[in-house]
C-alpha cells in the first residue's frame, strides 16, 4: 500500500490528570519493523493500545492502515499480542485460535488450515489437547503470537513478544519476525531486549515519560560516528605518530588481558583517510592483528538519550 501504515500526530493520552503520552508524532512505513523503547511506565503499551483503538486518545489523531484508529476496517488487518495477556483458560490452543479466527471472520475451511499451520509455526504442534490453564509461560507467549497472526494481518503489534520465552524460542520468534518482514508485513515492536531490537528493527523510537525523545532508523541512531578498532601485537609507535601528525581522533582502549594487547579506536574523517590508515597500519612493525568496525550500540544510544532527557529535566 502507498503511504505510511501508521500515522500519528500530536497524540496525547491522559488518565485523569496523569499524562501517559504527550504529543507523540510517528509515522511507520509498510514492510518495516518499528521498535519502541522506553523504561517501565514510559507509555509504550499505552501508545499501542491507543493505536489499536482499545484506549481513546485524549488529543491528536492517528490513522492505521489508512483508517481512523479504532475503526472496524482497520482492525480486520491488525494483529496484536498484548503484554500481560490472559487468554481464556478453558480453551486449548486450537480452540482458542478457532475462537479468534471466527471473530476475525475467517471461513471455516481456511481456519482449520491456518490453525494447524500456526500451531506448528510457533512450536505448539503436538500439544493440541493441552488447556491454556496448563500452559507454561512460554507456551502462553507462543499461542499469543499465533493468535496475533491467525488472520494474516498486515500490521502486527507485538508487546514484548519474547517475554518469558527460552533462548531457543526467542531465536525462533526473531526468525519469525524477520520472515513476516520478508512477507511485507509491518511490525510494531515493544521490547526491553535491546540486542533483539537491534537485530530485527529498521526504525527505533525511544519514549521517555510519554514523550518521544528519539526516532530514526537504526543506522541513523547508532551510526552517526563510525569508528574502527586497530589491534596490534605490540605497541604501534610509528602508527601513533602518524595519527598524531594527521590529527586523526583516536583513543587507546583499555582492555586488560585482551589479545592482542594494543587496541586503538580510530575515528577517520573520510574513506580516503581510512584507506591510508589501513595501509600504514599494515606496514607497522608492531604487527596488525585485526581491524574491526565499531558502531555505537543501541544500548549506548538508549542510555544516552534517557540520560540527556534527565539532564534537561533536572
Amino acid at each position: 500500500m502507498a503511504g505510511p501504515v501508521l500515522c500519528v500526530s500530536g497524540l496525547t493520552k491522559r488518565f485523569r490528570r496523569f499524562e501517559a503520552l504527550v504529543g507523540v508524532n510517528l509515522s511507520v512505513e509498510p514492510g518495516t519493523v518499528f521498535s519502541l523503547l522506553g523504561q517501565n511506565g514510559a507509555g509504550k503499551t499505552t501508545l499501542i493500545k491507543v493505536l489499536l483503538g482499545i484506549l481513546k486518545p485524549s488529543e491528536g489523531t492517528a490513522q492505521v492502515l489508512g483508517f481512523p484508529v479504532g475503526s472496524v476496517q482497520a482492525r480486520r488487518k491488525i494483529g496484536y499480542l498484548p503484554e500481560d495477556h490472559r487468554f481464556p483458560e478453558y480453551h486449548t490452543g486450537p480452540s482458542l485460535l478457532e475462537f479468534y479466527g471466527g471473530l476475525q471472520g475467517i471461513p471455516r475451511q481456511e481456519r482449520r488450515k491456518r490453525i494447524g499451520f500456526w500451531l506448528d509455526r510457533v512450536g505448539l504442534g503436538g500439544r493440541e489437547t493441552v488447556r491454556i490453564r496448563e500452559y507454561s509461560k512460554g507456551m502462553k507467549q507462543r499461542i499469543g503470537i499465533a493468535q496475533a497472526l491467525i488472520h494474516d494481518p498486515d500490521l502486527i503489534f507485538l508487546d514484548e513478544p519474547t517475554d518469558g520465552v527460552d533462548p531457543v524460542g526467542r531465536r525462533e520468534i526473531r526468525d519469525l519476525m524477520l520472515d513476516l518482514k520478508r512477507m511485507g508485513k509491518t511490525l510494531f515492536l515493544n521490547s526491553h531486549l535491546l540486542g533483539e531490537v537491534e537485530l530485527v528493527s529498521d526504525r527505533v523510537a525511544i519514549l521517555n515519560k510519554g514523550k518521544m525523545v528519539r526516532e530514526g532508523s537504526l543506522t541513523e541512531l547508532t551510526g552517526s560516528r563510525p569508528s574502527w578498532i586497530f589491534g596490534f601485537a605490540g605497541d604501534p609507535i610509528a602508527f601513533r605518530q602518524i595519527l598524531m601528525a594527521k590529527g586523526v581522533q583516536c583513543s587507546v582502549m583499555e582492555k586488560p588481558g585482551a589479545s592482542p594487547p594494543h587496541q586503538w579506536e580510530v575515528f577517520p574523517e573520510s574513506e580516503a583517510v581510512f584507506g591510508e590508515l589501513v595501509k600504514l597500519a599494515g606496514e607497522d612493525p608492531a604487527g596488525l592483528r585485526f581491524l574491526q568496525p565499531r558502531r555505537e550500540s543501541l544500548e549506548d544510544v538508549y542510555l544516552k538519550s534517557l540520560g540527556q532527557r534527565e539532564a534537561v529535566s533536572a
Partner: protein
Amino acid sequence: MQFIAILKDSIREALDARIFWIIGIIGGILVLLGLTMSFEPLPMGKVVIGNLITGLTGAEGRQGPQRRVGGRRVDGNGLFEAFQGIFRQSDAKIVLLEAKAINLTADVVNDGNLPTSEWKLRLELAPEIAKNRGASDSESFLKEHFGKVANTPVVVVKSVKLVSAGGSTKLDQVELEIVPLPGFRRIWPHKWSMFFGGLTILDCSKRPMTPFDALGNQILLLESILVAGIGTWVALLLSVALTSFFIPAMLKKGTVETLLVRPISRWRLLTYKYCGGLLFISFGTTVILGAVWITISFKSGVWSQALLLMIPVIVFYYAFLHSISTLGSVVTRSAVFGLIAACLVWFSLFLLNVARDSIRMMDQVAEVAAGLPNPQGEGTMAQGPKIADSTFGKVITGVHRWLPRPAEIDSFVRTKLQEDLLLGREAEKSPFSVEISDWKESAGITLGHTVLALILACLVFSYRDP
C-alpha cells in the same frame, strides 16, 4: 459467524464451569423425585357423578363465586362435599337415583369404579324439565348439558332412555349411559403420595372429598406452588448466579484487549455474550422443566401443556435479571457485584410488590369497615382517607406501575395452569385465583427495562476505556 464463535466460546466456558453438570444433576434429582410420586384413583364414582349433577343443576343460576345448593353454601369448585347414596335436593332439577359402572376398560382390575369406567345412571328429572320440554326434549337436554364441568364435557352421554314417565306427583325417570372422556380423570379424587407411597399427601378415602382431592387440582397444586412458585425463584437465582461470571471474565484485563482488537463492535461483543447466557439458560430451563413436566404428566396421566409456558416466562425474567447483572459487572468489572446488583434489584421489586399489595389490602379492609354500623351512634363508620391517595401510596403505586413486576410471572402462569387443569370456567372460581393485571403491559415494561439495562451496559462498555 462472529455470534457462533462467541457462542461456542461460551459453551466451552460453561462446560468448563460444569454448568451442564449442574443442570443435569438438578434435572435428574427432580425427575427421580417425580418418579416416586403416584396418583391413584379412589373408587368414588358416585361422588364424582353426584358432583357432575350438582354442577349441572347449579349451572343455570350461578352468579357469585359461591352458590347455594339446597340451602348449603358450596364452594365454587364444582366438586362438592361427599355425596353418599342418592342425592336429592329440593331445588335440584335432576336427581341421581342410582349409578353403577357397566363397562370395564381392559386394564381395569378392581370393581370398575374408575375414571375410565362407563356408567349407567338412573335419574329423576325435575318437573320443569319433564313438563316444559317434553320427553324427547329432555333427552336432548341431557345429551347437551349432562357431564359438563364449566362448559367443558368430561363425559359423553351415549344413550338416554325413559324408564317411567312422571305424572302430577311422580317425576320422570330416565336411564343414562355415559362414557368418560379423558377430562373425567381431572375431577376424579385421587390418592396422591410420594416416595412410592411412603408419604401420603392427599387421600380422601376416609374423609369427605375437598376440591384438592380432584386430580386436576392436585396437579395444579403441585405445578403452581412447587414448580411455578418456588421452582421459578430458585431457577432464576441459580441461573443468574451460574452465568454472572461470563461477562466479568470477558472484561478482565489481558482478556478484553484480545477481543477489542477484533473487527467487531463493542456493543455487539457484549450483546452476543449476553445472548450466550440467555441461550444456556433457555436450554437448561427447557431440559429441566421439560423433564419435570414429562415426569408429572407420565405419572398422573394428565398432559397439560400450561406448565411448559414456564419455560419462556423463566427465560424472560432471567433475561431481565441477566441484563442487570451485565450492567452491574460492566460498570464495576466484578462478577460478585453484578450478582449482588441483580439480587438487590430483584429483592427491591419484591418489596415494592409487597408494599403495593399491602396498601391495597389495607384500603379494602378500611372500605369494608366503613360499611359497618357505627357502635357509638347512628349510621355507618366514617371512611378515612385511602392510603393509596396519600403521597406515599401514590409514589409506591406509581413506581410499581413503571417497574418490572416479577410477582406477575407466577400469576400469569398460574392462570394458564388453572385454565388448563381446571376445565373451562371452573378456573375462574378456583381458590388459586389471583388478581391479574394486564400481563402484556407487565411483560412490555419488563422487556423495556431489560433493553434499557442492556443499552446502558453497551454504552458504558463502548465509551469507557477498559
